[in-house]
């Protein structure tokens, strides 16, 4: 039986080998038939993607508050755009320019489905993608369903890109700048002694109305070259705006001027509440004199134009005068070369004012390095070697604040710190004897210098805070009542 089966297998073996050899031939046959059927399917599917409904252009206009070379587009989505991207896959934005009497369109960008705004930005003449201002442009938008299936909207135009002289979104900043700039003008005129305060109060509002009117006039003339109608329409608005602005500036200017005048009066002295840090300055200088040790004055890591550093210069002047009076010594290691230069001038002047110009040593104020932690390493070493009686850290500080203050504490120095860097104040508060918090540094500068302009400014700032509080209280009440106009007035749009 077994032999019979074996013989049958032997007979079947050639047949099996033959079938195996023929297998690829059979295998290819269905593939060929499959390709043929797919081609047939493709031919049948092509007409199955109908063109989508076109989008509708709603707005095409120059971008506001810019230097030009930019146009905003907004459109209604194609009704066939269901937000899934299955059918309408995106939108093509085409920009046209007039070339030899015909509009030639160029594809600017393809945005995905669901998007219905686009800002077309270009460069100035000579740029890589020029889009000159004051030139006519036409736009059309195409809803795309497939590479070759798209439906275009109607052509919209012409529109022009133009630049604006004033950023209306920053109007609150302009108002605030004018108000605070008026402070400076008041200080310069009064401190210069060119006019007395009575004349000033009469002239000042007139001067400001004229300045504002001049600025508006220039802008309107420039605007008139672009659009004469706008020029005519803008005059009443500009007049009302300038009068309103002048009244507000006049009110604040009056406050500043009044306080500046009071500082000059012999009987009327401006009151500034005592600050423990201010009182401690003289104490610290006296301590250094008694102990015969130097005073270390650190101006921080700020530049010469930072407000805190400028305030620190004023206090340095006061400290240097007292140091010169008491013939003690002063060390001012500097981080910034420009700060060092200004500090040298301040200390030199202080010595001259105290009648001891010969005692001034230029090496008292010296440059260390502009590397933050190398500077800290140097000042810390100085503290432990020289053991200064008093350390002043007044200005702008960063991560080095605690390193400095902790080392000073270790050296047993009396320490007075002041900065407007909120993140560093906690470290000074825990490690120093006295800390001037934020604006207290500015107040100390005004108080110690005794300058009428600075004291008047301090007073005006206080009344500015009153205005601030009133604005916030009224604004909060209005917001709680659901009226958000105050929020809009104080919103800066960049």
């Amino acid at each position, binding site marked *: 039986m077994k032999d019979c089966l074996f013989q049958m297998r032997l007979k079947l073996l050639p047949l099996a080998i033959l079938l195996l050899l023929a297998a690829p031939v059979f295998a290819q046959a269905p593939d060929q038939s499959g390709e043929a059927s797919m081609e047939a399917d493709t031919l049948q599917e092509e007409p199955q993607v109908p063109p989508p409904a076109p989008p509708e252009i709603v707005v095409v206009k120059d971008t506001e508050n810019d230097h030009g070379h930019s146009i905003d587009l907004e459109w209604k989505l194609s009704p066939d755009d269901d937000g899934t991207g299955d059918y309408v896959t995106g939108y093509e934005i085409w920009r046209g320019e007039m070339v030899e009497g015909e509009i030639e369109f160029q594809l600017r960008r393809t945005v995905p489905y669901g998007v219905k705004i686009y800002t077309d930005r270009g460069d100035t003449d000579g740029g890589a993608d020029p889009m000159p201002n004051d030139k006519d442009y036409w736009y059309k938008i195409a809803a795309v369903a497939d590479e070759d299936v798209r439906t275009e909207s109607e052509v919209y135009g012409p529109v022009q890109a133009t630049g604006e002289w004033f950023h209306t979104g920053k109007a609150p*900043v302009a108002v*605030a700048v004018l108000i605070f700039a008026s402070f400076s003008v008041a200080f310069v005129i009064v401190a210069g002694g060119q006019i007395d305060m009575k004349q000033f109060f009469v002239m000042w509002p007139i001067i400001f109305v004229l300045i504002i009117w001049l600025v508006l006039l220039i802008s309107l003339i420039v605007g008139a070259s672009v659009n004469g109608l706008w020029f005519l329409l803008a005059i009443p608005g500009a007049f009302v705006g300038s009068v309103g602005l002048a009244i507000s500036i006049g009110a604040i200017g009056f406050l500043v001027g009044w306080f500046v005048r009071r500082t000059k009066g012999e009987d009327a002295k401006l009151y500034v509440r005592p600050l423990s840090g201010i009182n401690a300055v003289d104490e610290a200088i006296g301590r250094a004199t008694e102990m015969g040790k130097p005073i270390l004055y650190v101006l921080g890591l700020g530049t010469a134009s930072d407000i805190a550093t400028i305030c620190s210069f004023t206090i340095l002047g006061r400290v240097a005068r007292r140091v010169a009076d008491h013939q003690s010594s002063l060390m001012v290691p500097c981080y910034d070369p420009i700060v060092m*230069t200004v500090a040298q001038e301040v200390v030199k002047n202080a010595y001259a004012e105290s009648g001891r110009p010969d005692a001034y040593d230029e090496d008292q104020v010296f440059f260390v*390095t*502009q590397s933050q932690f190398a500077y800290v*390493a140097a000042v810390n*070493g100085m503290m432990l070697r020289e053991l200064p009686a008093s350390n002043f850290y007044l200005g702008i500080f960063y991560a080095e604040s605690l390193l400095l203050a902790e080392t000073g504490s270790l050296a047993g120095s009396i320490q007075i710190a002041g900065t407007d860097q909120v*993140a560093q104040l906690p470290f000074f508060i825990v490690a120093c004897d006295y800390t001037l918090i934020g604006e207290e540094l500015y107040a100390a500068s005004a108080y110690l210098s005794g300058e009428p302009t600075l004291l008047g400014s301090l007073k005006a700032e206080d009344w500015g805070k009153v205005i601030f*509080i009133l604005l916030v209280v009224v604004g*909060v009440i209005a917001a709680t009542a659901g009226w958000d106009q105050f929020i809009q007035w104080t919103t800066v749009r960049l």
Partner: protein
Amino acid sequence: MNPKTIKLIIFIVILTSIVLSVYFVSMDRDSIREGIFVTSAAFLTLFIMSFLYKDNPYYKFAEHLFVGVSAAYWMTMGFWGTMMPNLVAKLWPGAVRGVLPALAEKDASYWFVIPLFLGLVLLMRLSPKGGWISRWALAFIVGTTAGLNLIRYLRSDFIAQVNNTIIPLVDKTEAGISFWGSFSNIFVFIGVLCGLIYFFFSKEHKGFFGGAARIGILVLMLTFGAGFGYTVMARISLLAGRMTYLFGDWLGLIN
């Protein structure tokens, strides 16, 4: 024992440690250069940290090295990062062809004669008689930057502050009035007002005014406390970074 002898022994121990460290790190990394750099960084770190004990010659060495190298580094950076691209390349583009070829092809901008002039004026400080001229450049720098900062500060610290403080005291949501939302808004409102009152310098802090100022300083201290904790955690992460270097990169004890 004689203090000088102790110092000498410490010096010999440190020197030996440095030599051994260079040897072992070089063996480990198959590079003498790596061995020298890793060991230098590790020992300079330890020298700086020795300040925690007290001022010592090793700290002084590290401090002077750090100050000297950083001063030279920033001077070089100032020259190649500011002077050459922002002044020389603007006025004489051809002069930087060998070092900054990308800037050499641009047109000269003669506006930069103004900063050149101001820079030279600043150097007049070195002249015994003409030192006063440098004040003009200083006045320009301080005045211009202060003016530019005025706008920035007014926008961010004044107008934005007013804008962000004008919030409804009652926080209405879709589900009704949110208790915690309203509490938060009221807290912000009162905190800002009391904080401002604390910074009012024209009136002594007495009576109701004093009470409000006290609340103001309380709010400030709460803020500072939170800031302190947050920053201390960041500093601890810096310490962890140094420790990782010492125990990982140098000693190889941790991965």
